[in-house]
Structures are given as structure tokens and as C-alpha cells.
């Protein structure tokens, strides 16, 4: 059994790599860039260029993928010459500092021509002092210095450049300076070390908002799963047992009828009927700061939409599997052993009939989690699906990648659970 799981985990990693590269390439290929989406439609070309540079989005594709995967702090610390450290402040914001041999933490700011260092001593005291001796000589009389700035970025400051530019110095007003930041590397640990990066759209670490969205989607998915699966399986069994008789026909038609209405139409019509005409239920799933389960009335409509669509599909699979099992020789043996109908069905037929649908149902968990994008959009339900849709529309690559990875883990994970369930249910495979 161990080998089996190990093999699946290796496959999981391979699939994750494929998907991550795939998402990177497709997003790169599609037109539009993040700067326009973030800075708004009326942004000027130079602004766009400087913004992309500040976010390190002007690097070549493969470099960006590498930075996303393995992070950038190891490159930056090589350039700065000091190890880097990440702290999270009491208000939950992350701060990157360079670590001095003395143990104190240091960050820099360029004020006009001189370098101002902000030092955080181990006892928490923060000191600000000039630190011009760190400038290093570059070619042609230029001086440069790689350091960490206040906005969690490794920055290359240069002095004595040919082009002059107006720089506003606090307290002194405008002063013309021949230098400034020319290259940025946003600091992050990289996906492999648990930091999927900053969401370009919300500016906050992806992990935090993703977790909330995942929790919401899990709530929606699990409630729908728990409600619809048993009903669908039971109805499937009944339909299978009464094959070709009126009950079977009715159940099949009803199941199918629900699963064919487009989700968005179904959602909106449900809002129309229940929220507006009958006024029984709230029209949207607006949770505010409390978790979905605190407002059950808001869950009813999305879960209903989701379950009706699922019902049809699972019912059909279970029915087909039940019909096939009832035609099998060992059921004939059971009947010819004189066993009553209910014993034949529940002891012999049921377990065999459930093997096939169980595996298919597990595959659907993945669809439930991410595929319900439309249901979430129609109800304004802030789940993982909507998060992925918005990031894709917005080309917020960090969020999209992290979301896609979760989807892969869930997909392959559920497949693994499906396989384990299959081997557990089917002794023919368990005892080779």
C-alpha cells in the first residue's frame, strides 16, 4: 500500500509542475498586463514601465517562474552581501530586513544623494543614521549599492548617473539628484518554501486571502457534498432496481432536468423566486467578517443550485452501475440461494454497485471546489472559484498559481482517496 501512495505522490508533484508551467505560459500568452489593471486605464507608458520594474515583472518569463518557485531572497542576499530575514509586525504586515553580523536588523532609504540606514536593535530600539560609507565604486565614477528598502524590495541604488531627476526630499523640498533606484527585486521566499508571493491585485500576501477563500469554498462544497451525495446515491440505487419502470424513468428525467439548466440561469432564477418573490431567503451570500456557517440562511440557495446540478450526474452513474450489478451472475446465485429480495439487494448488490460511483464522486469533489465559479459569481459568494476567476481576469499571476496549485493538490488528492477507497471496497485488488 505504501508504494502505491508514494507513486501517487510523485505523480502529484509531476502534475503540479506541469500545471504551474502551463498556467504561467497561458497567462503570459494572453494579452493585457497587470500594470494597466492595477494603475487604472489612464496610466502613462513611463508609469507603467517603472511599476513593472518595481514589481520585477519585466524579468524574462523563465526568471519570473524561477523566482515564483524558489523565491528571490537568496539572490538578493548574494547581491547585498548580508543574510535577509522576514518579520511579521503585530498588525500582520510582513517586513524584510538585512541581518548585520552584530545581530541587529538594518534597512536603507535613499534621501537625495545620501543613504539613510534604519537599524532595529535586538532590544527593539529603532535608530536612523547616515550610512554613506556603504557606497561601492562602479565604473566611470559611478557609485552603487544593493540594499533592502522600506517596501520589502532589494534595490540597486546608483549615484553620479548622467540623467538628473527631481527628487522630493522631506523637509528640504525638491532637490535635483543624479541618481536613485534603478533596479528592484521584490523579496519573497517562493512557493516551495510556503510563500506564494504577493497578490498583485490586493497587495496582500496570497496565502492569507487564499486560506479564507479556500475555507469558504470548502464549506460550500462539503455541505453540498454531504447533502447531495447520499440522496443521489440512494435515488440511483432505487432507479437501478426499478430499471425501465416508471419510477426509474421519472427519477432519470428529474435528475437530468436539473443538471442541464445552465448554472448561471439556475442561480438567478432561484434568487428571483426565493429572494424576491417569496422573500424567504437572502438574495446574496454576503458574510462580512463572520464565517459562512454563522449565516446558514445565506448558504441555502448556493448549496441548492450546486446540489441540483450534481444530483443529476451522480444519479445517472449510480443507476448504470446498479443495473449492471443486478444483471451479474453472483446476484443470480444469491437469488437462487433463496435469499429474500432485500437481503440480495443490501448484502450482495449494494456494496458492489457503489464501487464505481464512489470513485467518480471523489473526482467531483475537485469540480465542486473550483468548478462552482459560476455559482459563486452569481451569489457573490467569496470562494476559491471566484478568487481564481478574478485573478485570471486580472492576470494576477501569483494568486492564480497558488490557486491552481491548490486545485491540483485537491484533484490528485481526491483521486488518491478515490483509488484507496476503490482498493478498500474491492478485495480483489486489496489481496493481490
Amino acid at each position, binding site marked *: 500500500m505504501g508504494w502505491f501512495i508514494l507513486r501517487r505522490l510523485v505523480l502529484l508533484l509531476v502534475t503540479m509542475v506541469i500545471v504551474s508551467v502551463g498556467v504561467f505560459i497561458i497567462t503570459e500568452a494572453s494579452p493585457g498586463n497587470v500594470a494597466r489593471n492595477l494603475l487604472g486605464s489612464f496610466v502613462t507608458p513611463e508609469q507603467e514601465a517603472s511599476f513593472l520594474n518595481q514589481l520585477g515583472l519585466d524579468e524574462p518569463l523563465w526568471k519570473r517562474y524561477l523566482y515564483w518557485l524558489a523565491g528571490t531572497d537568496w539572490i538578493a542576499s548574494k547581491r547585498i552581501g548580508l543574510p535577509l530575514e522576514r518579520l511579521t509586525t503585530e498588525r500582520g504586515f510582513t517586513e524584510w530586513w538585512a541581518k548585520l553580523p552584530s545581530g541587529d536588523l538594518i534597512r536603507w532609504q535613499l534621501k537625495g544623494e545620501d543613504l539613510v540606514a534604519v537599524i532595529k536593535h535586538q532590544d527593539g530600539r529603532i535608530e536612523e543614521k547616515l550610512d554613506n560609507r556603504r557606497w561601492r565604486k562602479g565604473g566611470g565614477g559611478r557609485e552603487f549599492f544593493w540594499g533592502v528598502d522600506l517596501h520589502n524590495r532589494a534595490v540597486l541604488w546608483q549615484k553620479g548617473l548622467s540623467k538628473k531627476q527631481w527628487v522630493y526630499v522631506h523637509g528640504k523640498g525638491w532637490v535635483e539628484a543624479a541618481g536613485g533606484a534603478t533596479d528592484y527585486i521584490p523579496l519573497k521566499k517562493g512557493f516551495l518554501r510556503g510563500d506564494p508571493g504577493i497578490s498583485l491585485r490586493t497587495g496582500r500576501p496570497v496565502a492569507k486571502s487564499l486560506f479564507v477563500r479556500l475555507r469558504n469554498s470548502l464549506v460550500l462544497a462539503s455541505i453540498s457534498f454531504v447533502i447531495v451525495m447520499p440522496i443521489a446515491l440512494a435515488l440511483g440505487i432505487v432507479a437501478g432496481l426499478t430499471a425501465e419502470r416508471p419510477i426509474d424513468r421519472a427519477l432519470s428525467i428529474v435528475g437530468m432536468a436539473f443538471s442541464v439548466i445552465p448554472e448561471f440561469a439556475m442561480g438567478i432564477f432561484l434568487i428571483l423566486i426565493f429572494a424576491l418573490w417569496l422573500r424567504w431567503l437572502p438574495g446574496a451570500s454576503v458574510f462580512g467578517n463572520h464565517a459562512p456557517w454563522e449565516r446558514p440562511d445565506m448558504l441555502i440557495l448556493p448549496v441548492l443550485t450546486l446540489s441540483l446540478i450534481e444530483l443529476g450526474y451522480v444519479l445517472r452513474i449510480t443507476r448504470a452501475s446498479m443495473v449492471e450489478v443486478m444483471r451479474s451472475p453472483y446476484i443470480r446465485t444469491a437469488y437462487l440461494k*433463496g435469499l429474500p429480495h432485500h437481503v440480495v439487494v443490501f448484502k450482495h448488490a449494494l456494496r458492489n454497485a457503489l464501487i464505481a460511483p464512489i470513485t467518480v464522486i471523489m473526482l467531483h469533489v475537485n469540480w465542486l471546489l473550483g468548478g462552482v465559479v459560476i455559482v459563486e459569481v452569481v451569489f457573490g459568494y467569496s470562494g476559491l472559484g471566484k478568487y481564481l476567476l478574478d485573478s485570471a481576469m486580472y492576470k494576477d499571476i501569483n494568486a492564480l498559481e497558488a490557486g491552481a496549485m491548490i486545485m491540483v493538490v485537491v484533484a490528485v488528492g481526491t483521486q488518491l482517496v478515490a483509488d484507496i477507497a476503490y482498493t478498500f471496497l474491492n478485495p480483489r485488488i486489496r489481496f493481490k
Partner: protein
Amino acid sequence: MNIKNSKVLQVENLSVSYKTRKGWIQAVQNVSFDLSYGETLGIVGESGCGKSTVAFAIVNFLGPNGKVTSGSIKFEGKELVGLSRRELNRLRGNRISMVYQDPMAALNPILRIGDQLMEVLTYHRNFSKREAYEHCIDMLKRVHMPDPEAVMKRYPHQLSGGQQQRVVIAMAMLNNPALLIMDEPTTALDVTVEAAVLDLVEELKSEFGTSIIFITHNLGVVARVSDSICVMYAGEIVERGHVGQIFENPAHPYTRGLLRCVPLLGTSKSSTVLRPIRGRVPPPERRLPSMCIFADRCGHRENQCVDKKPNLREIDPGHEVRCFKGERFLYISLRDRRSAQKVRRIGSSTCAEKEKPLLDIRKLRVYYTQKMRIGVKHIVRAVDNVSVQVNPGCTLGIVGESGCGKSTLLKAIIGLEKVRDGKIFFQDKELDTLVVHRPLDIIKEIQMVFQNPDSTLNPAYPVGKQIERPLKRFKTVPRKRVREEALRLLRAVRLGQDYYHRYPRQLSGGEKQRVGIARALASRPSLILCDEPVSALDVSVQAAVLNLLMEIQNKFGTTFVFIAHDLSVVRYISDYVAVMYLGQIMEAGPTQRIYEPPYHPYTEALLSAVPIPDPDISQRRIRLEGNVPSAMNPPSGCRFHTRCPRRHLLPDGGKICQEKAPEEHVIDKNHTIYCHLPIETLLELDPVVEMKTS
């Protein structure tokens, strides 16, 4: 009412029909027979004759679209047709129980054997769990099941075919039923395992006194097991009588035809010829009620046979037949008929002793690797150090039970399996590559005929196209004459012109095999490998195909390698025979020498297990213990030593068999036996099969 002497089962003109897409079809019409206590009735007939339908009609399990249209079935005096479900359930599994053809499918794959056995008792006789468990263990011992406690905990797929059948029989016998219906119980088993199961049936019959309905298509098996026999054809009983009457002087042309087309163990292709029954079974919708059902295939047809339908009439005490001329055939006993016949030999056999064999296999080894789990690889030694030669124009028969490696050997020759070690020479050229890499002219020379008629032809293309494909590929004829050649090939295999446009689904099993043969002939190969071409066919059709193969051999001088598990068929068609066991050849030599002493102990056991459809032939009983070992870790030394009944003849109980593999003992030039037993002791053994001196 003393039920002992009255009948356990009376069936009065039972008719059953099925609902198909084209409406209701009559599968069985006015079948009548009765069965007394302790008696075994054998129902024999070819596939599609309705024998299983009768069985299922008795237990009223005809499925959603089957229905008993008329007639009555009385079981111990009580009418079964129209019984309520509750009463039916009380009978099923308790007073009437059933055993099926494929035991593996008949057992529920996800329940332990113990549960499936005990539920019969706990339900019918509301035994407690403990009581039921004891009873099951006892019954498993009765059916000679080794280590019954372990078997109770196992799942069906963990048992061998023979063991599974024993479990099903045990399950049927748990409630000591009055009637046991067995539907082809041994068809799917190997001949030695079949023999053991048939012994068990006899044992149970004498011990429990259960009356049995034994359904099979194998005449040998029915001869051995039954007291009385019904012969069914196209849904009707054509002859009924005591087993001796049926086999000694069969009265119905169909019964006589059947008996004549079954190769007897003693017959070879040079001594007699098989007489196939021509034509094919009329499909249910074309069976005219007003004429004899067998009329269009009967060699002795008269007008009256076509004008009105003969009904079953008694021509001898206890011997009924459905034929107007029944009495006439009564007194021409079949055997005299056969011996009196001028021996019609299928032309001079093309097989002669030639110095250069067409096919020469030396020390061939073919291993599979089976991946149980990643990293853990098991080597399966399918073919292990096999050397054999085939002379041009001859037929080499390879016989052995399933898993002995005969198919793998064929695949190695034709190039579908990679050879691990050893050489294959064909027309003096070494075949060392897979078929894909062989030059076209070598590929042309070797063709293959396959076992299962349903999967030998591609269902998506008409017959003509499939025959033309090899013609075009090997360019045996110029492109424009391809169609003409295809029609010639069809004629060569006795199929009409219009089969050219037919699709495989419109052909019967026999017809499909013929097209398979035509396809193999297309490239005019010098060697045709036949992988059990007839074992899936009905007896009557089997004879036609065997004759066709021999006719081709005579006409084109083709060499055959013919593998099968039925010794009488191999005996009939082969010039040379090799007996294989667990990937090795035990004995090889001219056909006649193999079927008479000195035998290799395994050959002897095989011969004694073959059911012979002739009550007058006496057969010595030699049974092998234990199961066939797995090819993954074959026994050391002589592979047969774990089951060899003759080991005790050797000094110190045959220890040598365990340590050393036997060398090759050659008896007069081309008869070899691989056994440590000296030839003299083997010669002293009396023959397995002898004519009963009257």
C-alpha cells in the same frame, strides 16, 4: 404418500419464450421428462439448444424478458409454475439448488467464502452463527477442500478454478437438497480438475442420494455421470433413454450424427474420418412448427419429415425418440456401423520422415516479468528449456493443461513474445527478432489461427475485406485479381460467394473460424500455428473444421503446429504429439506411441482423466493430488514431482525427482520421455484405455 418411489420432478410439455427486439421468440417447446429420487438425468445438446433455459425454468429464474408460456413443472408433487415468490424462496437453495458453469463469476467478489456459505444455513434453517460455521467446515471437508478454516476467510479470487467449483457445490449441498441442477459445471475446468470434480459428484450422489440434472455439451462427461440422458436440439428433446441405450444404439439421426463427429481417444486421422453434420442450427425465428426440426440437416430425410412434425414416441422400454424412422436405426449399432465401414482415409498423409525439419526449436526459454509492486519483479518462466522439431507436411500436436506454456511457445515462434534464451530455426533461417522486425517473406511463411471465434475477426469490416488484407499486404496475387483470389479462398474453406459481403456478427462460430483459416491461407504459408482452433466450437462444427484443416494439409502440404487441451482431438489430427507441463516438455513422439505405454506418468494421468463418450471403454482411474504450482517459483528438479503418482516406484520414494531434472530418454529414435523412472518399469504399466471385452 410415500414420496420415495414417486418422481422428484415431473415436467409436462414445458414451453419457454423470450422477448427480444423483434418480439417473443420460442426458445424451448413442449419438453417433457421426469426424474426419480437418486437418479441423474443428463441433458446434452449443442449451444443454443435450450438446455440451460429448461434448468432456469425449473427454478423460475428466466430474467426480466423470459416467461414459461405453457406446460407444468411438478416438484415433489407441487406445481412450480406460477408459485409465489415467498414459497419459491423457501424451495430455492433448500430443496432445489444449482451449480453454474463459471464458478468465479458465481461467487460474490467482495464477500468472504464463509459468509456466502453460512447465509444459506442461517436463512433457511435459522442456524446460529456457530452452528452454521461448524456445518460449513464439515461440508468443505466432504468436498475434499484442503484447510477449510483458511478457505472460509478467503475471498473467491484467492482460490483456484477447481476449488471455487468445490465451494459452489458445497454451497448447493449444505441443505441436502432433493434436486441439484448442474449447468455445465466442469466445462471451464482443466481435464484433470474436471475428472476430480466428476468423482466428487459421484461421491455426493451415493452419500446424499440427491437426484441430479446434469447439463453439458460434452458427450464424454454425460456418458460418465448420467443414468438416463435427454438429447436436445433447437429447443426440443429429440431422444430420451437410458445411457446404455443412447450410446449403444442411438435412434435419432442427430444423436447418431453427434456420436459420429466426436473423435474417440483410440481413433487417429489415418484410421477413421469424422462425419460432421452439415448446415447449421436454424435460428429460433425460423423453426417451422409443422416439420421435423432436424429435417434440413438430416441425411435420411423423407417427405413425411417435412409434412408433419414427429412427436416423442417410445420405441423401446424407457427409450423415446422424435423421428418417424426411429425403429429402423435402432438395430444398426453404431460401433459395427463404424467398423464395418470401409476405412475412408483422408488421402495419403503428407507427413514423411524427412531429414531437415521445417521448424527446429532448441532449448527455448521465454520469461515474463510480472510487476506486483514497483521494484518487486516476479519472473514467470512460461517456457523453460524446450526443444522440439516439426517436419514439413506434418502436424505437431502440443497438449497440456492451462498455464503449461503452449500458447507462449506459439507466440515465441511467430514473434509476438521476446525470447530470453535458445534458438528457433525456420527453413534453416534463425528467427531471432520480433515479428515487426522480420522481413516480409519470412512473415508470409508463418500464419496463425486463433481460438475464440468471436474475437478472431474484426467486427468492423466485412469478411471479404479481411481476407483481402493479407493478399494485398503480401502481394500474393496482382492487385486486380485480389477479389477473385478471396472468393477462391472462401470456396476453399467451404463458404459461399456471398459471405464476401457478410459482417462477422452475421456468421456462426464455425463460419468465423473458417474465415480465420482462409485469412491464414491467403499468403500461402508453409507453417500454420493453430492455437486451440476448435475448443470453443460445438462438436458438430468442430469435426468440419478439423476435416478442413487436414484437407488443406493434403492439398497444399502445409505444416501445422496444433495446440489443444483435448487429447482425443490432438490424437485425431496430429502426426507427432508433445505433452507439456509447467513450461517443459514431459514426453514427445509419434502420435500412436504417446497413446500407449510406456507413458510419462503425467501423460498417463491426462489419458485417464479424459471423459470418453463410450460406455464400453474401461478407463483406469489415476488422480493427481494438490494444485498446479505457480510458474513464478516452479518446483525443483522434475517439475511434476509434487503431483507425480508414480514416484513411489523409485528407490527412496523418488527423492531424486526432487533434486535433479530428468534427462531425455530416447526410445527408438523419435519418442522421448523425461522421467527418472526406467523405461522398463514404464513398459510394465498396463494401458489406461482398453476396450471392454464383452
